[in-house]
């Protein structure tokens, strides 16, 4: 195709968009919405991965004590824990302290705590291990040893949560692929139909172009450009909305169980570029399918 034809193709593509504004506006909205859902999945998936990686590097324990534990026994539990290699007791949370933290965490919803006859929360030690070599630590073994101590009710460690979240992450990945696949097919369907509508509105012109000797590609290229422009705008809109949403959400720190503060990150550039390219490819393929079908017919 001659280079001097490209300004004509671009002109035609923009003219098509302007002549079918409503169709393109609706298509832009629906395609961007699909990409936003896809982007949300990527965003959640990416952040869960980061959080899990962070947890995997450091081992922390919560040691819950019996309500009836005496001070002496509590101190011997503390000494035992402090004596473990690389371990340090970061803080002791009394029953009252735990209730107070829960009250703060619940904020305005803490009213219902007033109805409690007694404090149901246990006192606990928060323990961390300084050595960042989790493979040298056997959390299950440590947990069993501490739980065997008199006055200890239960021990929970971060990897238990990490394991549960890892399982969740795998499910999310599967769900993401499934929903992502469906959304991609949806975007393809939407773009294909939008281009079909513009082809339909220009069918008379196409017939005349063919009569004066236009090749199939001469007719097809403006429609493919049109679909591609449409998908570029949709991808940019989707990324803009995602980033706006991220700015709002990232102002808050996420807390898990009121203990762990998590940072929320935006999609890295590689993910954003991938989402953008996916949209462009879907737009180009959708238009190609639409013009292909038109010429077959």
């Amino acid at each position, binding site marked *: *195709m*001659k280079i*001097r*034809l490209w300004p*004509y193709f671009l002109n035609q593509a923009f003219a098509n968009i302007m002549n079918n504004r409503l169709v393109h506006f609706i298509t832009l909205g629906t395609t961007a919405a699909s990409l936003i859902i896809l982007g949300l999945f990527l965003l959640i998936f990416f952040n869960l991965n980061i959080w899990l990686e962070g947890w995997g590097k450091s081992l922390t324990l919560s040691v819950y004590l019996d309500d009836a534990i005496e001070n002496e026994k509590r101190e011997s539990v503390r000494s035992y824990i402090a004596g473990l290699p690389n371990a340090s007791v970061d803080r002791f949370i009394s029953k009252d302290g735990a209730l107070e933290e829960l009250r703060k965490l619940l904020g305005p919803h803490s009213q219902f705590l007033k109805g409690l006859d007694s404090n149901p929360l246990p006192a606990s030690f928060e323990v961390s291990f300084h050595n960042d070599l989790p493979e040298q630590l056997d959390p299950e073994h440590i947990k069993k040893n501490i739980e065997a101590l008199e006055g200890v009710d239960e021990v929970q460690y971060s990897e238990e949560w990490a394991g549960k979240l890892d399982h969740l992450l795998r499910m999310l990945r599967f769900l993401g692929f499934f929903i992502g696949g469906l959304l991609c097919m949806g975007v393809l369907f939407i773009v294909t139909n939008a281009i079909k509508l513009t082809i339909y509105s220009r069918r*008379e*012109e196409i*017939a*005349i*172009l*063919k*009569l*004066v*000797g*236009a*090749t*199939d590609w*001469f007719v097809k290229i403006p429609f493919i450009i049109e679909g591609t422009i449409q998908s570029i705008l949709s991808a940019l809109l989707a990324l803009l909305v995602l980033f706006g949403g991220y700015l709002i959400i990232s102002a808050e720190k996420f807390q898990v169980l009121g203990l762990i503060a998590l940072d929320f990150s935006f999609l890295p550039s590689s993910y954003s570029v991938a989402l953008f390219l996916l949209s462009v490819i879907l737009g180009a393929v959708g238009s190609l399918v639409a013009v292909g079908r038109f010429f077959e017919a």
Partner: protein
Amino acid sequence: MIKLFHVHKNFGVNVALSDIVLNIRKGEFVFITGPSGAGKTTLLRLIFGSEKPASGQLLINGINLNRINRKNLDLLRRKIGFVFQDFKLLSRKSVFANVALALEVSGESKAYIRKKTRQALKLVGLVEREKAFPLQLSGGEQQRVAIARAIVKDPILLIADEPTGNLDPELTKDIMILFKSIHMKGTTVIVATHSRELLENTAQRRIILNRGKIVEEQ
């Protein structure tokens, strides 16, 4: 230039053309005439490559249209001008843009397109109305725009299907004069018509079709 050997065309059970043998030489002016449904339009569509014969061979400038691929057919059409009864102009484009379209598809330069389009519009007497839109023109003017579009690429062959079907006798004469002047420049011209005005006082070759067969040649 155009050779048809025992060409047959049918649409389902309806026979449109039967055993057509025809030879049109380069630079000829030929009328194809006959009553409605005689097969005139089908014959033109076969020559233009819009339809393929059911059997028989059709050659244009030595190219067998039975074997031509889609791209080469498009390229061949750039050498053929076609004028329709219903003009087939794009109402959203100006007169100039409608005529220029035939050159834009070939990827010609802007300067060349401008020069050739003005020349074609001058020939049909519409250079002053290049900015007008088709719906602002009379029927005769619209047909002249369609003729300008057909001749702007200097075709070797000009085909016209009932070009004066929608025009009054006075405009019919104007269009006929235009075709003759195009023919004088060496273009082969084929006009399908059943218009008596168009055939009056002409010495050109006439091929008379009836029920899909050539019944007479004059």
